[in-house]
């Protein structure tokens, strides 16, 4: 279990490809389907045209007018937010491990291995491939992928901003307005939640702890779930998490047990990846000194929840989790 978690996290940092589901996977059927689609499109709405966009690596990418079968590497969250179904979804461990928090929208979608072998990509006959970051196509792989379908790299390796990614994907899929709307709705919801939380708990420190078999991790306050709770929701991070964030630039950074024992958190969110129950976990005396533990304000979420992911959908689910826990 824990090994799976670990590799899931490492792979979280990797990109994955989402394939859009087409009615059929054989190329002849797919092309018929897209022909039909584009024909009917002409009569109904203004026909989107083929465009050339420059991607994050500087490639000039010819984006099809109306992509039907999209593979979007580890970008499912954004696609779901825009109402687009990918042809296949990211998976690791031979398709057994997927992004659970998105399965309401993706549960019928076939899986593709996270390292995107060429032939697996090709078997979905994509007409557009979106790559999360440049690292996914290192070593000249870009050229190979672009022989399968137009390949658009969404962000450089350093660029971790989900809003920018969402907007860029919106632009590529001709859904810029939808993308902006998603962001507006998100900001609105975050603002409401923020106001409620401010009234309810003020500046009492709130900790996020990701507990794995061997270590405990806390998010950088500006990244991942840290950005949602301490940024968008304006919650106060305990001293220890602020300190770790100054040096730890990864999404999640290890926290020493000494720091954990001294943590002055009034509320604690545990992302449980240890495979033991919350009660068993809290029996360890190291937790006993934390105010939240004394007052029973420890909330547990499974590692399958959206807390280890980033995107409009993941973040909205996190906000829901926070609200239902603290305000109940």
């Amino acid at each position, binding site marked *: 279990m824990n090994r799976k978690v670990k590799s899931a996290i490492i792979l979280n940092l990797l990109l994955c490809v989402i394939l859009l589901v087409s009615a059929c996977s054989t190329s002849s059927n797919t092309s018929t389907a897209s022909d039909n689609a584009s024909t009917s499109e002409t009569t109904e709405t203004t026909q989107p045209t083929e465009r050339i966009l420059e991607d994050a690596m500087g490639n000039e990418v010819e984006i099809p007018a109306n992509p039907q079968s999209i593979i979007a590497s580890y970008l499912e969250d954004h696609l779901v937010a825009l109402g687009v179904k990918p042809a296949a979804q990211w998976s690791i461990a031979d398709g057994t491990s997927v992004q659970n928090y998105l399965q309401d929208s993706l549960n019928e979608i076939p899986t593709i291995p996270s390292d995107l072998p060429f032939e697996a990509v090709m078997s979905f006959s994509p007409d557009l491939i979106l790559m999360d970051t440049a*690292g996914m196509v290192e070593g*000249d792989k870009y050229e190979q992928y672009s022989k399968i379908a137009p390949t658009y790299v969404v962000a450089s390796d350093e660029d971790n901003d989900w809003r920018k990614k969402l907007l860029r994907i919106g632009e590529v899929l001709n859904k810029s307005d939808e993308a902006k709307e998603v962001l507006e709705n998100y900001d609105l919801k975050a603002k409401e939640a923020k106001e409620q939380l401010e009234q309810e708990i003020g500046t009492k420190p709130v900790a996020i702890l990701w507990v794995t078999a061997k270590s405990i991790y806390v998010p950088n306050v500006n990244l991942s779930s840290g950005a949602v709770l301490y940024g968008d929701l304006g919650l106060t991070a305990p001293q220890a998490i602020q300190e770790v964030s100054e040096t730890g630039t990864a999404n999640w950074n290890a926290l020493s047990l000494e720091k954990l024992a001294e943590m002055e958190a009034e509320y604690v969110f545990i992302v449980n990846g240890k495979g033991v129950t919350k009660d068993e976990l809290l029996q360890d005396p190291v937790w006993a000194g934390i105010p939240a533990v004394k007052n029973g304000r420890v909330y547990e979420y499974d590692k399958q929840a959206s807390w280890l992911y980033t995107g409009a959908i993941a973040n909205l689910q996190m906000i829901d989790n926070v609200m239902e826990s603290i305000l109940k």
Partner: protein
Amino acid sequence: MESVKHINKRAVASMGILALLIVLSFFISLNMGYIRIAPIDVIKVFIGAGTEENQLVLFDFRLPRMVIALLIGAGLAVSGAILQGVAQNGLADPGILGINAGAGLAVVLFIFFVQGTSSGLGMLSIFVMPLAALAGGMLAASLIYALAWKKGVTPVRLILVGIGINAAFGAALIIFQLKMNPRDFMQATIWLSGSIWATNWKFVVAMLPWIIILIPYTFYKARYLNVLSLGDHTAVGLGAAVEKERRILLLTAVALAGSCVAMGGGIAFLGLVAPHLARRIVGPKHEMLLPSTALMGALLLLVSDTIARNILSPSEIPVGLVVSALGAPYFIYLLIKTN
């Protein structure tokens, strides 16, 4: 004379069989993969009548990878055969001696410092990478040679120092890897365990000159290897410039291993196993041993890569792991038998 002739005939026949097996595996491998292409469609593609999709899968995805597998297999195997001859020890291999680790370290440093991960690999870097690997391999080999030097180099010292150098370079690699971010770490790990899946024709072009020049050159040097294998005293007695030939042969082995590591990462055990298998079939004479080692190495890596591509399909496992899984038991068997 008669018996020599007899052996040669047998050796040539064996090489013929090996070549035949390679051709056979080649066509089987071409047919296998996540996307199923019937043999008849494969033939259609080759006579230019296949679908565009099949053409892409075969010519751009499968073929370059298989050709690279053949080249790397031959290169590493011959490199191993040279080292075993020079060191007069059946346990020598570019992986065990630290030459792969040295080349690997150089390539990892090259990828992450010089080229950066944000841009794709340009044409230039693909051709420069073997040179970087060569420099790293050379550094490792020079260190081994210098540290093993004590009024000349004895084969046993060469091996022992090599194992030490291997450990040192391995440690350096780990230190460096720990400083990487997790994604780069994963990439480096996969690459170091030997992976050839992202291959295209550019890599083949970059690799080909090294193999085409160096392998025939070692065939030409086969007689020196024969003499060196007899032991230093005998070799000197037979009039060979032992130290000079040893250096030239070492350099050739390093260049072969370096260019292979640059393209395929650290594929362990191949350089060890292939010469041994070949020696069983054709005997210790290097004129016959080297070509059959090359064939054996090419065959083994092609088969291993076909397994790596298909066993967990559509996921792939690094080919180096397959070679290790097959090679390690043989290595242990060898150790037990040697004792």
